[in-house]
């Protein structure tokens, strides 16, 4: 409402964030949080055994980690910011106001992390000159691993907060946001999953890099497998814990039976994937500890892919159960605060959307006004023609029968009830009507839908350029001076 609306109709706005975020999370978990401790372990083994092969392998693995995390890894992290602030600026703006110092600390940790990985990687060769230098160098690696975990621990607080702000709604302090009920189970789950992912990924790469030295491969893979196996056990405990806490907590929040069913099916898909995935990965690790030379690389690769899928599914479920909110109970995913609803439903959203081009629905402008309403209320989750397209949804519902505006309106009016994950419609009757006419008009011939990055914004009118509201007293300027 307060920002020009950026929209990509083809891949969809949520998809843009999702692709960036999933890539980031996978790199962060598998190559930073989970893999760096393994590198330090390998370096330590090199120091202990005085066998230079350990050191060479560790360096080769670290080089890959370094290249990927300092390019794609770091930039997709910044990309989450960029995409979130384009797609839902109201939400990210609010989160920043609440979590500023959290993010600031996060930034300091991040600076340390990047400095450490550069120091660790770039001084690797020169640290070979003396045993003392080597020990110092190892210490860098341990610090690095610790810092990359702390980065994650802070971010998890923010993610947990978005799902359930806990006491923040009443207290509005940083700490009450951080200590929300989701925090510890989620952190435990992510930490242990990251460790197993990191271990498995390193096993895969080791498998590749040690083609010509099979006895050494056996030794290394057994070592990493044992390390990952221990984390595997903790991962099972953490999954059970997470699974015990989250669903009950979330289910208590979902009032609608239909959605509860959908939720249960999402969650059981996660449970299923977790059970199958963990059994498979556990089995691979077990055989790998016992007969490390005999496990084929494809099994390791399959384990890594399964772990990625588990993490991806976990993120999807997390996203799903957050809906219809983007900040639990405070702001809906369309960027509108729960508190704003009565006003918008009374006056109409177009009256209050700064950058809307039409304010009033009339008999002649229904399609155009409906497009504006759609832009304000649905485009954060739907496209017209792309991913999760509204045309596709309507087609599934009504097929090739003519789409009737009244029928669509009857649905939208109650869509929050029918599909809890969608926010209630935040406008008045006339706007609902216009939106339905617009949607029905898209059945035969969809008009291209562009965002503000292509269309720009309309010339400011009275509403956009003024600072007062209707008949209310001007609180900011109580003496009634007119500006």
């Amino acid at each position: 409402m307060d920002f020009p609306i950026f929209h990509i109709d083809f891949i969809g706005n949520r998809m843009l964030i999702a692709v960036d975020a999933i890539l980031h999370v996978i790199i962060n978990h598998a190559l930073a949080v989970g893999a760096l401790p393994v590198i330090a372990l390998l370096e330590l083994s090199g120091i202990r055994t005085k066998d230079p092969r350990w050191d060479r392998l560790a360096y080769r693995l670290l080089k890959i980690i370094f290249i990927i995390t300092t390019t794609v890894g770091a930039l997709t992290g910044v990309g989450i910011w960029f995409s979130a602030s384009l797609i839902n600026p109201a939400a990210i703006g609010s989160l920043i106001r609440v979590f500023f110092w959290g993010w600031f600390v996060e930034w300091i940790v991040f600076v340390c992390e990047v400095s450490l990985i550069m120091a660790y990687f770039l001084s690797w060769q020169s640290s070979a000159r003396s045993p003392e230098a080597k020990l110092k160098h190892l210490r860098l690696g341990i610090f690095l691993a610790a810092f990359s975990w702390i980065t994650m621990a802070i971010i998890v607080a923010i993610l947990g907060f978005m799902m359930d702000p806990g006491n923040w709604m009443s207290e509005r302090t940083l700490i009450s946001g951080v200590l929300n009920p989701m925090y510890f189970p989620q952190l435990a789950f992510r930490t242990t999953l990251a460790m197993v992912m990191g271990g498995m990924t390193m096993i895969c790469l080791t498998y590749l890099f040690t083609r010509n030295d099979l006895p050494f491969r056996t030794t290394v893979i057994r070592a990493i497998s044992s390390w990952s196996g221990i984390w595997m056990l903790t991962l099972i405990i953490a999954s059970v814990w997470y699974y015990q806490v989250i669903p009950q907590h979330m289910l208590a929040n979902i009032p609608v039976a239909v959605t509860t069913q959908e939720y249960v099916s999402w969650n059981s898909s996660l449970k299923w994937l977790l059970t199958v995935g963990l059994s498979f990965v556990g089995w691979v690790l077990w055989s790998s500890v016992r007969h490390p030379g005999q496990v084929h690389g494809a099994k390791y690769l399959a384990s890594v892919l399964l772990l990625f899928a588990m993490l991806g599914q976990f993120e999807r479920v997390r996203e799903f159960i957050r809906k219809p909110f983007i900040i639990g109970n405070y702001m809906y995913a369309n960027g509108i605060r729960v508190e704003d609803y009565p006003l918008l439903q009374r006056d109409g959203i177009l009256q209050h959307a700064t950058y809307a081009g039409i304010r009033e629905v009339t008999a002649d402008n229904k399609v155009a006004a409906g497009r504006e309403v759609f832009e304000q209320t649905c485009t954060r989750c739907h496209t017209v023609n792309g991913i999760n397209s509204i045309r596709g949804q309507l087609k599934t519902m009504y097929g090739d029968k003519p789409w009737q505006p009244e029928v669509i309106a009857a649905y939208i009016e109650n869509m929050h009830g029918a599909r809890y994950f969608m926010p209630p419609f935040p406008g008045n009757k006339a706007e609902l009507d216009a939106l339905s006419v617009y949607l029905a008009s898209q059945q035969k011939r969809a008009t291209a839908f562009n965002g503000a990055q292509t269309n720009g914004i309309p010339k400011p009118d009275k509403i956009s350029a003024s600072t007062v509201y209707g008949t209310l007293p001007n609180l900011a300027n109580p003496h009634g001076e007119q500006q």
Partner: protein
Amino acid sequence: MTAPIPRDIPLPLPAPEGLLEILLIAAFLVHILFVHLMIGGSMFSLVCQIRGLKTPDYEKLAYRIMQTVTVNKSLAVVMGVAPLLIINTLYAPQFYASSALIGDMWMAVIPLVTLAFLLAYAHKFWWNHFLNIPELHIGIAALETVLFLVIPLIFMTNVNLMLFPEYWPKVTGFFSAMLLPNVLLRYLHFVSATVLFSSLFFVWWTGRKTFRVEVQFSELRVIDVRRFFYAFAFGATIFQILTGLMVFVSLPAQGMSWGFTALLMLGGLVVLPAIWWMWQNLTRPGHLLDDNFKQILTCFACATIIMGIARHDYRENALADHKAAIAEKTINYQAAVKEAGEQAQLAAIKAKENDVAAPGAAAFNQNCAACHHATLPTVGPALQEIKEAYANNPDGIAAWTKAPGKKRPDSMKMPGFPQLSDDELTAISQYILSH
């Protein structure tokens, strides 16, 4: 021309505004320093590599320069996070608006930087693989440098656009924002600063004692390389002042003030001694490049800090009215929200009283209305249809609702409602039939 006035995020700032502004200026200067070193390093490495085709020693130099780029580019990115965070906090209504207006190019920053970094790694880590195909190697270096030069233009367009809300309605897409007065001149000023800071950095870097050992020139003398960078630094300083004057003249009036002008003059004056020393060191026999080097650096550092403050001052001036209007509108909007909220609450209480009269209505609205409309088939059949099918048969409705079957081939299966009590079901059924 009028500007759109949005409302601000209705949550308090996390810290006093002044503190955030100081943090912003400081963090931005650190960020931009590493950006200069990153871009300048990439440019100089390219230049040296081309010269290396004739004089192989330059190729060695190019390789060493790329080693600094590896470090500086990572610092440039991490150091950029803090100013981005603070801009997001302090200027949410303006910064998010300008970002959205150039949204696709703004988003493209992420893949472009990633690509530039990957190219830089390919350029450096595979140096020896390219020995026999220098054209390809130089091509990679050139592409990397071009990308490094394009990215700041996107940033510059955005931070310029956010300053002038009255231009927003005129902007359609990135290029129209880029062509607003002053962006390209500011960019030129930025690029000459890049040359200036990076060449000064390389004068220092090639002057370190260990440099000679690291680089192992076969014929080239280190002193010649240093003079090469020094000459660039001097030229860029002059160019910097000229472009600075042009930027000043072309700046839109919105942010101008005497204080700002005075800061700029002061910043310009501070570099004059540095120019004098540099000229002497370059031209007078008997002077060494390292003469007064610390003083020269101090001059540039002071000028940079002053310019950083001036830049912020201009932004604050340009946005002062807009910020005040936004604050006012936000307060008034919140009052309207509160008023409407209270009205709605009263209405809800009234509605509840009505519910007591018709007990099935509330339960129906909560559980069934989403899919069953009075007269229209929506997700499920209309009430009309149900009424006809179940006339005088409320128990039938209740039974179906507890455990629905599957009847209509072209509609979804209705979910069951085992959680509803018999009383509730009876009330709902009666409500449907009497509706």
